[in-house]
């Protein structure tokens, strides 16, 4: 999902912001008269109270580099392998989510992995917090 700013070409005024996968020519905000500029959306600090994520949401939060490193680490670290194995085998709930960010196993796993990734210089000190808390 991308956030777009809608700018009136005539006045230069920003008249609307919307989230969408693609530009939409809203009635009265057509491309002939308005620019739809993709902007980086401010990161929400929480997912509106959402503490459960789908696996895809969770791995997106981890980031590609971190996730790849975790898979690599799972080959040599039994602890990480257990984490990955449990992650893979967790069945989704009815709402599609599989990861509980408040589950102590999730918290412990993310923090443990965060320390290892930090040591490798792959993530910042705030990585684990960002994964767990947005």
């Amino acid at each position, binding site marked *: *999902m991308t*956030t777009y700013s809608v700018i009136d070409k005539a006045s230069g*005024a*920003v*008249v*609307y*912001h*919307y*989230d*969408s996968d693609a530009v*939409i*020519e*809203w*009635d*009265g*905000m057509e491309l002939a008269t308005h620019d739809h500029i993709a902007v980086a*959306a*401010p990161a*929400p*600090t*929480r997912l*509106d*109270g*959402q*503490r459960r994520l789908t696996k895809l949401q969770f791995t997106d939060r981890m980031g590609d580099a971190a996730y790849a490193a975790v898979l690599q680490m799972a080959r040599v670290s039994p602890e990480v392998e257990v984490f990955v194995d449990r992650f893979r085998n967790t069945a989704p709930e009815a709402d599609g989510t599989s990861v509980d960010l*408040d*589950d*102590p196993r999730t*918290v412990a796993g993310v*923090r443990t992995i965060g320390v290892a990734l930090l040591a490798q210089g792959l993530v910042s*000190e*705030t990585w*684990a*917090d960002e994964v*767990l*808390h947005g």
Partner: protein
Amino acid sequence: MAERYCDHGAYGLGTNRIGRDVPAWGVPQEGDGTSKAAATAASIASISFSSVPTTGAASVFGATVSVTGVLSAANVNAAANVLAANINAAMTACSSFVSPAQAQLRNMVYARGPSNGAPTGTCQIMARVGSDNLNTATNTNARIVHSFNGSPTVSQFVGGSGGCWGWFINPDALGVDSSISAMNYGAFLYLPYAGTTPTLNDTINVRTGGGASKTIDYTNTTYSTIRHGAFSKRMLFDSNRIWTSDVEDGRLHLRLTHGAWGQTLEVSPSVGGQVTLYEAVCKGGFTVEGLATESAGKIRFGSFLGSSDCVFAYRGVRFVDSTPPGFCDFLPFSSESAGGRRAGEYFDCDYSVTYARTQITKDTGGILPAPGYAQQVSARFIGCTFDFNISSLADPGPILGMEFAGSCSLYFTCCSFLGYASGYLLTSASYPTSYESDANIRFRVYVDNCKGLRLPNSYFGLPTSRFVLNLDDRQIVHSAILDQDNPGFRLENARGVCEWVPNDPTPFPTAGAMLSITGAAWSMRLLWLTVVPLSRAWPFSAAPSRTLNPHATAARTVGVRLFLPSAVTAGLSLAVMYQDANGTPRMETVTELQSDSTAWEGAALYPGFVARKLQVVTSHPIKQGTEIQTLLQLVGPPPSGPVLQVYYNPEPDVA
């Protein structure tokens, strides 16, 4: 410098809950914090179909709405009904330009179609939050946009007006399908759904009563972390200054009950990179109580989870630890991640334990700076009361757990420590040996004019290393000279110790100095250690003494009387600091010990000790009535081994 307002329950607590209940049409379920009264009018918009659209999309408040079932619906009423249903189910986030919290659309608005009272072919949308900022004329982002064919008629949001926030914190779930978890909504910790984000210059006035006091009960049964949003704020718990008809001693009482064995409930009212201030007009106007009902269950409050720096302060806040067998950590604490710094200040706050216990130990609510990594904690307690409710006559253990592994600065000024007749020990009697090799462990502890604390009988004997030779890195100052119950003084760092221990097994010799309140004779003692190689450039400095020049402006002789082993002939220095007749600061030093005829009281207990003095004849006149400061220093190794004692009269002589 805006005034904001929160009146917990103003819109209903069991009914009319934001998102969770269907609102009365046009009646807000929440406000934007802009006035002390509840919001009464919601912004309303509509989209009317004259024909069924077959193509297009829709967005409300910046959140995309599904048009499944709308396009090619059976008729215009069906299109409007389905659109309303889709809006009421939309989990997409509103634009931050409309909702600072980026609330889910379904929790921000409520929509209805013709089947629920809207006109033919029309989908009406009301904001659940009353706010002028949700009127399109005020906020261009607060609108409906669409790309439907058939040219439906859109009437943008109008009519909304602001009011107080209605939730301090939600103890139960809110939102459509309970999508807002308990303790995840409210002015206490989170960004608002509408209006603007508070700043540190704003005042969030919180109603503590409404007549009587309010209690918010939250019961938790799992491991939980509840964390403040990423913004700074100043929160003022009002009594009847804003809500003038309320009682003047109203209290907003947040009661946290945690019933998970071995698990932790962590509530973090501060956040990295931000400043959070909590002030109560009436002492206890904000009371936080923790009830940990399972053994090994723990409640942490006042802490911060994360690795970023944070600053927080409390004034007039009461912390209550109730109900064993679990325990509460209310005071400065940080548990997770490396590198963060915490700076907290507690002014006129209370901490009390409501059940009798026998020990103050780690994780049972001592004043416990416990950074797990190389963190820095700085906390200042001014005029606070601590009641640990110790029932045992045995020593309950020190207040400072000395469990920390990082760096901390702790200041206690004019605090009272209650609940244990013999007085509390500030620290353990011996220095943890595990710290000796850990260069990261640095601390400064200052205790001044506190009641109920007592000195450990002997000094720590702080070790040092090349990393911590700086005086302030490991230093404890405990000043209770005028305390009638547990008088004493000790300044200790790695270079030496300066102390007054009135209950010392061997009474201190004295030279006439008397305490102004009790009339007791007293003196100070230097312990001449050998941990650090002392020199003139690297001395141990005793606590400075100050007096006023009672004489006319002229050059004066300023001295300090000493009582020390006769073998000591060098290694001490006296610095005299004053202003001359022109107001120019002057400092002069002397190291030559002189003989002295003072008859020290109790000298018989100190065989081999003799009276000496260090004195300076000033090179410049000392202005009458100005302050003279004397600083006694150890500036070389002791002549006869470690822990040599030097006594001095704390009242300098000016002649």
